[in-house]
């Protein structure tokens, strides 16, 4: 990722040039200032306020009456009993749900995305149409896809239960979104359906950049297609897949709307974002909810930094593209 960033234009020597460069750098900061100001006022400031509120007992109904309480939202002991986020089983349940959802859905999306990308990369009649069809789930708003699948997974009138019963796979209808055993899977199914196209497109773009001559060489040597896939395609495709997986995983960690609409505030599927929103808005616990938001931010930031460091090291080692 860092590679393209360092390839700036070369500015030649000469006093006149360097004066020009200074002028251009000044212009650069001028050009950046609207964005920087906007981000500072409407992103950095709310983020800082959220951190601060996490250390107060603020309540949504009256924000002016908040007091600094230190780490009590995170951890506090009264009469030998521990309170706070760090010992809240519901919070850890939400963390566990989010991680489970992220790992399973991203893994499935990668596999399906790879299959679809390979199909779209093949030369066959009607490929354009198939690509168009595959884009449809991506184009459908998340809320709409949550609703559509909510209806298809309906326990009494859902088409999926009807189909499975007709085929004799199940005898009684399953309450997909309400049953604790299936609720998370319902969420995963919808997410995989909605975001696999994105994964497929990114992997397809990677496939299209692969050099053709390697495949011709493999053909000449009589290497079978399965071997070619595992020995040539997959290793060459790895950078594209890694980038796609990172993007999807960071996106999955913040999941809110799909879960909120499909299963509302059920603890079986509650993600970190749903938990935080519930504390903040539904329970009006601005301080406690902000503390949860802070922890969520820390977790995602931690993972982003690790990915960026890992990505930078590897990409720099590869040299210019």
């Amino acid at each position: 990722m860092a590679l393209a960033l360092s390839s700036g234009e070369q500015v030649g020597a000469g006093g006149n040039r360097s004066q020009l460069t200074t002028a251009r750098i000044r212009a650069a900061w001028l050009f950046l200032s609207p964005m920087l100001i906007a981000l500072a006022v409407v992103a950095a400031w709310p983020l800082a306020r959220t951190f601060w509120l996490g250390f107060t007992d603020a309540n949504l109904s009256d924000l002016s009456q908040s007091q600094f309480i230190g780490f009590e939202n995170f951890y506090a002991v009264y009469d030998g009993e521990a309170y706070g986020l760090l010992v809240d089983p519901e919070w850890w349940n939400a963390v566990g749900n989010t991680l489970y959802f992220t790992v399973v859905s991203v893994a499935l999306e990668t596999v399906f995305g790879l299959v679809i990308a390979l199909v779209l990369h093949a030369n066959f009649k009607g490929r354009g149409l198939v690509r168009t069809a595959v884009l449809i789930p991506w184009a459908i708003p998340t809320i709409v896809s949550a609703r559509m699948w909510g209806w298809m997974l309906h326990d009494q009138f859902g088409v999926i239960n009807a189909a499975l019963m007709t085929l004799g796979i199940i005898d009684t209808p399953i309450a997909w979104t309400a049953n604790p055993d299936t609720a998370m899977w319902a969420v995963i199914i919808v997410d995989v359906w909605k975001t696999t196209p994105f994964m497929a497109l990114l992997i397809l773009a990677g496939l299209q950049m692969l050099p053709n001559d390697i495949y011709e060489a493999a053909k000449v040597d009589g290497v079978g297609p399965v071997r070619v896939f595992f020995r040539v395609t997959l290793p060459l495709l790895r950078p594209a897949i890694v980038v796609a997986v990172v993007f999807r995983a960071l996106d999955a960690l913040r999941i809110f709307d799909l879960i909120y609409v499909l299963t509302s505030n059920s603890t079986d599927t509650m993600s970190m974002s749903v938990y935080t929103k519930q504390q903040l808005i539904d329970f009006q616990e601005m301080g406690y909810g902000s503390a949860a938001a802070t922890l969520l931010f820390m977790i995602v930031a931690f993972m982003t930094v690790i990915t960026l460091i890992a990505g930078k090291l590897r990409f720099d080692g590869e040299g210019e593209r």
Partner: protein
Amino acid sequence: MKQLVKNSLFYSLVLVIVFAAVFPFYYAIITSFRSGSELFSTSLLPTSFNWDNYTGIFVEQPFGTNILNSVIVATSVVVISLAIAVTASYALARIPFKGRGLMLMTILSVSMFPQVAILSGMFELIRSLGVYNSLTGLIIPNTVLMLPFTVWVLTTFMREIPKELEEAAIVDGASSFTIIWRVFLPLMWPALVTTGLLTFIGAWNEFLFALTFTLSNEVRTVPVAIALLSGASEFELPWGRIMAASVTVTVPIVVLVLIFQRKIVAGLTAGAVKG
């Protein structure tokens, strides 16, 4: 013979993919034309063609207003963030300055950060500005949400414009602003359209802020309206109407995406792969 088996296996895979991609939307469309007890039918073919659900959401519910709200919010977000992003992405793509790599990394990270992390601070800001429960109160947070993404995608497009054009303009003594206005903007239209479209879709789909910063149905955007659509009783969701509303807002987006699919694919992959 072997080739035949291979081909039929391949085409069955293609069929499965197309079916899985298209069926849910198809089923939403046929459900939206069913009303009353028809709704309980699980037939896979259209059984009736009834506009009741559509008239219901527009006449008995302010769904038309909701659509207008979404259009206003998403359009404003596109215009504002493109205006800010054009100059910013020129600086990031074409001028080498100290800290540029770090700034690009920060922008990418910000675009991936969870919205909920700034929810309470944003709530406070929105209230203190007096724009709670208004469209302005949705445009402000949505712009910030989409701005890093817009800058990032535009920067990757901006990098691809040949250096020679810019150098010629510099030699002619053009200022940086003139270069953007006279040299880059005319060349950037396709990129601006693609980026604008992706930003529009992002803002159109935004849910958390729209849910949190509005109270009354008249200022709600489409996703919130669909999520909160309620029926006669609390326990009975009006599925027919929900599907009608879903189809109404999805058809234009799907059509847009299909028309611009090449551009969109280019924009999405530019934002991710080349980053």
